[in-house]
């Protein structure tokens, strides 16, 4: 059990009696870092959470955004890191299942999944390759079976995840505003558990996730069953239509213990339940196991006697088991019985509100030494560097991954995965753009500006589709928070996100904090992951391919910011330097300029400039456009005089590449000059060669055919050969 000494004495002082074992188990599950956020909760309030579109209701596990015309979009993000590191298929699959139920519990239909996957270096680590392949299979197996499209995400490899895995899943829901579940309950309402039977899988999972991964406790990993989840989705949505649900909560970390105590606490009620009535997978489960099992595909519903027959009828239709396990009381107590014996009788508020901690923070020592930039080996042939980078696991096409995900089901996917953000059509004629981004290499060098950069990058991707960012979700993943140096990196990231969110007026509508991400060789790099949703009001922007004679324009300044770049880390195996830092004012000006150019259809396509820098971004335009280009970087907007390699590979933020038809060139130049946007016309698309010049020196000379092969085969070749 994971209760700390000070917590045990706090319990003793508050309850003033000897606690039963069941009570201790319940408290231990709920007070785990995973469920209680005891290290982070005090600080999370600095994030902006309100805004024009945000709908806030009691007891929602997902963020709710009003998208007009009586419709809402819901969104949530979770990770399943520890389980995926031990059992990648089941861990990743149940990660999808959990976040889907959070979307469902608001009464909305899940319509999309995005996933962020991080592993060790798959080029030389076969274990990392095994984790990667199986996590992808797990997500595919689960999401495909549910018929929810996985529309995007990202995959990254870094030595800091050796023998570990980060599996983040974001889910998006859609529904009518008047069908949202308005959680409420009154005395004598019935507490019903529906879904899969409770078993011994995942017992103590939340505590397992709240400690460093030292023993591979496979029994703490839940077993996925997407078929039951699919039946639950249809059951719940039909029960919602028939108005059978007063309140609802998903059973996730901490199982029944957390679902019951958190529901009672948020609704200001008491719940009396009998473990005898819980349907189980096997006989002989102890009451404590029933209370803390994290078996998947279960939902807690509060209904009343009049609605119960209809609810049961719907459950019968879908062969979903439904057990009445208790009822609502007025005493605000969580009362757990086994037959007529009382096993636990605790104040729900006491259980649901763990004592919060004041963690110490100290600026890490490593940051003092890491800033220096070593003298790099002189590069003679940039063409060869580009080819290597395009085939490298972090940059190469991820079609091997998203081809395994059904990204078309639901027939909403207008912009498919593989480019910047993905775009879905909504039933009210609007379009939803979504992207998740993380960058541990940047965040390691500068947790504050790295985190802001992830936020801006996700916004940039959404902006590239012509959408206005309306909300964000964050998933903050760090090592052991008891280490003051790690806690400092957490606080820096959080403060950075709050600062940028307030500036841009993009509220944080949901999120999660995951600590104790420790590998056998130490903590992971700080890995905040940011998901951004954007809305396109009328017509979607369908990018068209560049053709011979189209112009290439860059918006945004390139700076001396090679720290944490793929060029430093992959090419030079160097970790250090100055990481890119978002200039808030430029960020907004550039975003607005791109959005108005798209709105007026002056651009053929827009591409974000990020991992790998300008050189990679322009190559990607040629790869997808199947056309060469002649580019001169002499006129590149920069903050100072920069060397060729810095212009090519710096990963400075707020930069966009635009493809412009010749007939719109003059007007676009006038427009950007008037808006005081830093920009330059860099060249033209033509032929089948990619030529990048600087000061009349040819830096890069290659062909579209070669870069396409490298880009599309890089990852697959690596996976095919073992």
């Amino acid at each position, binding site marked *: 059990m994971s209760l700390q000494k000070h917590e045990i004495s706090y319990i003793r002082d508050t309850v003033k009696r000897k606690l039963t074992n069941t009570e201790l188990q319940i408290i231990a599950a709920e007070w785990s870092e995973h469920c209680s956020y005891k290290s982070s909760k005090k600080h999370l309030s600095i994030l902006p959470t309100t805004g024009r579109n945000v709908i806030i209701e009691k007891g929602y596990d997902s963020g709710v955004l009003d998208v007009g015309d009586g419709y809402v979009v819901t969104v949530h993000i979770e990770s399943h890191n520890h389980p995926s590191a031990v059992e990648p298929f089941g861990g990743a699959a149940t990660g999808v299942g959990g976040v889907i139920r959070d979307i469902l519990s608001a009464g909305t239909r899940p319509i999309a999944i995005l996933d962020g996957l991080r592993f060790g270096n798959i080029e030389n680590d076969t274990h990392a390759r095994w984790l990667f392949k199986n996590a992808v*299979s797990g997500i*595919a*197996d689960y999401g*495909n*079976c*549910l*018929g929810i499209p996985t529309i995007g995400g990202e995959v990254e490899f870094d030595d800091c995840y050796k023998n570990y895995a980060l599996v983040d899943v974001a889910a998006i829901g859609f529904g009518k505003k008047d069908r949202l579940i308005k959680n409420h309950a009154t005395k004598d309402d019935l507490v019903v558990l529906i879904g899969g039977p409770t078993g011994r899988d995942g017992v103590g999972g939340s505590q397992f996730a709240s400690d460093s991964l030292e023993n591979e406790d496979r029994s703490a990993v839940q077993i996925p*069953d*997407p*078929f039951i989840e*699919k*039946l639950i989705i249809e059951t719940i949505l039909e029960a919602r239509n028939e108005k059978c649900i007063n309140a609802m909560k998903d059973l996730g970390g901490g199982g029944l213990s957390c679902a019951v105590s958190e529901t009672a606490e948020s609704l200001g009620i008491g719940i009396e339940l009998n473990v005898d009535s819980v349907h189980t997978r096997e006989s002989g489960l102890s009451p404590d196991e029933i209370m803390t099992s994290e078996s998947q595909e279960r939902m807690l519903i509060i209904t009343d006697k009049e609605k119960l027959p209809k609810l049961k009828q719907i459950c019968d*239709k*879908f*062969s979903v088991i439904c057990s009445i396990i208790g009822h609502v009381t007025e005493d605000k107590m969580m009362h757990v019985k086994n037959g007529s014996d009382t096993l636990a009788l605790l104040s729900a508020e006491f259980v649901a509100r763990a004592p919060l901690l004041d963690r110490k923070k100290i600026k890490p020592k490593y940051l003092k030494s890491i800033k220096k930039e070593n003298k790099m080996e002189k590069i003679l042939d940039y063409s060869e560097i580009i080819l290597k980078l395009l085939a490298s696991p972090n940059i190469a096409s991820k079609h091997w991954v*998203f*081809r*395994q*995900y*059904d*990204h*078309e*089901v*639901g*027939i*909403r*996917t*207008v912009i*498919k995965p593989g480019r910047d953000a993905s775009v879905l*059509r909504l039933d009210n004629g609007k379009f939803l753009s979504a992207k998740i981004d993380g960058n541990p290499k940047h965040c390691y060098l500068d947790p504050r500006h790295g985190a802001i950069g992830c936020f801006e990058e996700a916004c940039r991707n959404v902006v590239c589709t012509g959408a206005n960012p309306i909300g964000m979700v964050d998933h903050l993943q760090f090592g052991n928070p008891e280490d003051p140096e790690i806690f400092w990196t957490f606080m820096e990231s959080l403060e950075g996100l709050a600062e940028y969110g307030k500036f841009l007026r993009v509220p944080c509508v949901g999120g999660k904090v995951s600590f104790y991400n420790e590998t056998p060789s130490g903590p992971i790099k700080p890995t905040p992951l940011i998901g951004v949703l954007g809305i396109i009001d009328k017509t*979607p922007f369908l990018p068209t391919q560049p053709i011979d004679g189209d112009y290439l324009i860059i918006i945004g300044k390139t700076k001396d910011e090679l720290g944490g770049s793929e060029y430093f880390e992959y090419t030079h195996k160097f970790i250090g330097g100055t990481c890119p830092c978002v200039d808030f004012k430029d960020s907004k000006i550039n975003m607005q300029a791109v959005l108005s150019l798209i709105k007026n259809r002056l651009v053929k396509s827009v591409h974000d400039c990020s991992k790998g820098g300008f050189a990679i971004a322009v190559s990607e335009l040629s790869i997808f456009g199947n056309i060469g280009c002649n580019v001169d970087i002499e006129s590149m907007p920069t903050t100072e005089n920069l060397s060729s390699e810095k212009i090519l590979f710096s990963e400075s933020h707020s930069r966009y590449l635009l493809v412009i038809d010749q007939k719109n060139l003059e007007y676009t130049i006038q427009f950007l000059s008037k808006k005081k946007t830093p920009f330059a016309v860099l060249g033209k698309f033509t032929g089948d060669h990619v030529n990048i010049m600087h000061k009349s020196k040819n830096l890069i000379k290659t062909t579209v055919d070669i870069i396409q092969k490298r880009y599309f085969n890089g990852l697959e070749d690596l996976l095919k050969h073992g």
Partner: protein
Amino acid sequence: MCTNFIGEIITKIVKVGVIVFPGSNCDRDMFHVLTDVFHLNTQYFWHEKGLPDNIDAVVLPGGFSYGDRLRAGVIAANSPVIDDIKKLANKGIPVLGVCNGFQILVESNLLPGVLLKNDTLNFMCQWTNLIVKNNKTPFTNKLLLNQKIPIPIANGEGRYYANSNLLDDLKKNNQIVFTYQNHVNGSAEQIAGVCNEDGNVVGMMPHPERATESLINPSDNKPSSLIFESLIDAIGVKN
């Protein structure tokens, strides 16, 4: 007598049934396309319920009926509704099975052959090109022979297999309806869709319902739309 959405006089009110099994997940997409895009009078039928005699066409949508347990489609093939579908099929009513619907039709012996795991051993979601090989079925009568159809596939068990005797029979009876233009998943003769001997029951692995609207079809939505327009023609919606 009544009129349809563009004011044409409809001589009879047709009824298309979309069968829903536990785990079907393209039922809503298919329903949307039949009703909102092609304005057909469409109704869902839950697998336990019987089908009315006056139904004009039946569609088995894609998904993971019963979670693909045992083998894709095999449990659904033993549902009560299958007996009714067999009766309707024998009467010559058009029946279309898409993806998991195709797997169910094969498992219930309404169509010949079997569907195996793709030769990539992975689930595959990608756009492919189909070639029309039989334009005499109720789902292909408006298509040209050898016409190309850009269309997405999304399956793990989509590799069509038949032994050489069966393949000979299929060719002899003109039962190969669609083939893939390129090697996609290891299907015998690159077969993507087949029909029964009478031609009224058609099964296909690719998803026509994902390709009829230009907004979500990155290439050309016309040929896929013709699959549904063929049905409209076959069941006599228009004068």
